[in-house]
């Protein structure tokens, strides 16, 4: 599914046509305008390759891949919401604290009040929505800068967490709840060396991805736009197929698809679609691109910003639940620096500090770049001190590269 977004974008960016394009110029044009996202995809592949060699193949072992997903799930969930907030031209510093607060609330509900875990989860998500709406209200309707409002929220929810937990960790969670973070898709069918349902799911993803590619190509052509030459297109399909097959086999040879990956996949597809194809998504980009023009075109910018923050609240709650489930405890120290990781992921993944630019897929790619760096460096034995230095430089380099590129393109 992930590929469809790039196709949609390449349809737009590969737009300017000239009579007899060479392969190189087609590629160059397809890449231009979306250099950041393609660049990051390439960078991600290179980083993976680098650490694969460096760790003597440990990085891509089924166990480690599964770990990687489960360790980074909550950051990726936050990065999706953060990307939308940043596209709208805002920022949210409170998500780490809010995640902790919701995790704590869930712990209190489930452990101390023995509430059934699905009910508690639902209540927790509603708490997140209310917290997001609270901040969105101040930002959108009262015009207070989001930096200030969410900085206040960061303190507010952190303090709230400590009050709820009274400085103690609350544990343990019911088994069912823990599985949202550490569980896997159940196994069905005959015993094979692989996880059957995972194989089926992988096959389904592959079919959908290839169909989307074909559809996108047909549609692009129907606009009279230039498409990739057939050879290159087939090569692209081959790369996609290889990536899906390898990834599926890796997961299937261990415990199968982690539940958290299913959640992420659903969010990626859902929010990707929302931002690409829905009116409200379009309005979000318009506000970030030029709020004055959007308002004068009849866009209800206050409502859109309010909803973006409410949505961020729900996703922060979800991330808080996933993190609490993984830790199997609600703790006062949860979620520290999550907001910074999520913001970094969004910017590495192609967001623009002035808003109006970015994709949900970009946020995921950015998050994965950070995640693989974390995981890979830990495996090689780089200390957390140097890890932070390196991550900081990567963020600076990614955004600096983008700014440099834009300036050269004269925009």
């Amino acid at each position, binding site marked *: 599914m992930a590929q469809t977004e790039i196709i*949609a974008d390449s349809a737009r960016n590969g737009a300017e046509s000239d009579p007899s394009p060479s392969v190189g110029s087609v590629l160059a044009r397809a890449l231009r305008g979306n250099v950041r996202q393609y660049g990051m995809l390439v960078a991600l592949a290179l980083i993976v390759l680098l650490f694969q060699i460096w760790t003597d193949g440990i990085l891509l072992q089924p166990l480690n891949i599964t770990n990687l997903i489960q360790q980074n799930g909550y950051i990726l969930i936050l990065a999706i919401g953060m990307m939308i907030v940043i596209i709208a031209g805002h920022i949210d510093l409170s998500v780490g604290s809010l995640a902790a607060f919701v995790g704590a609330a869930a712990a209190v509900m489930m452990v101390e009040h023995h509430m059934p875990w699905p009910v508690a989860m639902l209540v927790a998500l509603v708490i997140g929505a209310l917290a997001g709406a609270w901040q969105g209200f101040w930002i959108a309707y009262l015009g207070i800068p989001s930096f200030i409002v969410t900085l206040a929220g960061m303190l507010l929810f952190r303090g709230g967490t400590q009050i709820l937990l009274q400085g103690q960790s609350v544990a343990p969670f019911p088994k069912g709840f823990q599985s949202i973070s550490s569980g896997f898709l159940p196994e069905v069918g005959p015993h094979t060396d692989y996880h059957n349902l995972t194989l089926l799911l992988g096959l389904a993803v592959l079919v959908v991805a290839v169909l989307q590619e074909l559809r996108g190509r047909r549609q692009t052509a129907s*606009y009279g736009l230039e498409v990739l030459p057939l050879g290159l297109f087939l090569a692209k399909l081959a790369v996609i197929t290889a990536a899906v097959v390898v990834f599926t086999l890796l997961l299937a040879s261990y415990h199968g698809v982690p539940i958290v990956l299913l959640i992420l996949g659903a969010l990626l597809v859902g929010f990707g679609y929302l931002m690409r194809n829905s*009116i409200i998504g*379009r309005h979000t*980009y318009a506000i970030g691109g030029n709020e004055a023009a959007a308002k004068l*075109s009849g866009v209800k910018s206050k409502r859109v910003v309010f909803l973006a923050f409410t949505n961020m609240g729900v996703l922060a709650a979800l991330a808080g639940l996933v993190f609490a489930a993984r830790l199997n405890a609600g703790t006062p120290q949860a979620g520290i620096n999550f907001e910074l990781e999520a913001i970094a992921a969004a910017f590495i993944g192609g967001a623009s500090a002035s808003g109006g630019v970015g994709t949900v897929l970009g946020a995921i790619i950015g998050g994965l770049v950070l995640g693989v760096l974390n995981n890979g460096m830990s495996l090689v034995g780089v200390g957390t001190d140097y890890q932070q230095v390196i991550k900081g430089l990567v963020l600076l380099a990614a955004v600096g590269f983008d700014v440099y590129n834009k300036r050269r393109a004269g925009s």
Partner: protein
Amino acid sequence: MAGPVLEMRSISKSFPGVKALSEVNLTVAAGEVHAVCGENGAGKSTLMKVLSGVYPHGSYEGEILFEGEPCRFKDIRASEQRGIVIIHQELALVPYLSVAENIFLGNEHATRGVISWHRTLTHAAELLRQVGLEESPQTRIADLGVGKQQLVEIAKALAKKVKLLILDEPTAALNDEDSRKLLDLILELKAQGISCIIISHKLNEIARVADAVTILRDGQTIETIAIGPEGISEDRIIRGMVGRDLEHRYPDRTPDIGEVAFEVRDWTVRHPIDQQRTVVDGASLNVRRGEIVGIAGLMGAGRTELAMSVFGRSYGRWSGGRVLLHGREVRTRTVPEAIRHGIAYVTEDRKHFGLNLIDDISRNISLSALGKVARYGRVDRHEESRVAESFRRTMNIKAPTVFTRTGTLSGGNQQKVVLSKWIFAEPEVLILDEPTRGIDIGAKAEIYTVIAELAAQGKAVLVISSELPELLGLCDRIYTMAEGRITGEVARADATQESLMRLMTMSTASSNEQV
């Protein structure tokens, strides 16, 4: 009188595609007040930017002699060091710093980077006395009215040892009392030997303070008139300002005018920050089906403010007035409401208020009516592209495809995208604010054709323009505005550039009474 303090000889300045100044000459005698007049876009501001070094030496042709010496200013600082200080219409004061701090901003009384407050405050107090402002130097700028802020600007210029003071529309934002004080001050400074260039639309003020007036039109010097003790008639100045050539072909049309479609009654708007100021004062107008109606007015007349306020109260603070469509009162308190009632406003400032420059043509066109290409909240990209493509063809938008970013288009093509956006919204009433500003002649003619077609389809079209020939060529009827008021309504058959300009420069003294 002594020799000239300033001579600007054959100044020419081009921007891509436009020649803003062509062989302009301006000579200011020492110790005189010299007025510069001209319609919007005549080149007054450009000329002053050349003089003050905003456009550095080398970016224009011709030469500048100040006190007999050739000058090659590389920036504003260089011209200020020679004693040329420009005060812009939009004052350049920092609101939360004190009067004294503002006066010496960039020019501080300091020793090795440490400010001497004693010298700063005593010098500031002295300068304030000189300009007749009775305020403490420690007052915050934000606590002063516009009139007093203007005096602070002049004090700031005096601190820079100004020899030639340039004032761009100094009284545009002032009430009568403050205007009178300011003009008196200018005469006082003149007595102290400070020369002054004053750009103004208010011809009665020019007649009062100026010793000579230079008239610019279409980037050229038309004439310089010395004003003797007998004064000058406003008609004499108007005759020089108007008379631009009818350089464009306007579409032939036989207007088919129906009943009144759109009506504004007694519309009053106050300034968004300075709420004492009435920007639009009891304006009433109407437009019929199939009619093209113009609004003429000089800078600061309140035309854009009226239009934006009617369009969902997008400007200032509304303080009275009604909008009627086909005789029925409608509410236009928000932009979506105005759009729902079939009103469209095409902005004069397409880059800031019209387009999302980082997005493509198709998404810009669909933005104000996304619902038309969407079902159940899902945008049909295929349909959207098809719509955009048809506009690209019919409006002749010069771009490779509809997926080209609007930021890369020329001004004329950007304007066509903005127009397409609003035509796609299918309004009944279109308010077009300076629809041909800053675009080339070919694109202008195309846009005139589009406007004529819209009227032929039975839409009510209101055109705001600073170009009188454009209004005369296009409109069936023209309103004039000055100082926030409608000062006249003229049928095309009865209108001439002179008669319009007279209405546009009519002073409505009572409109600015202090509240």
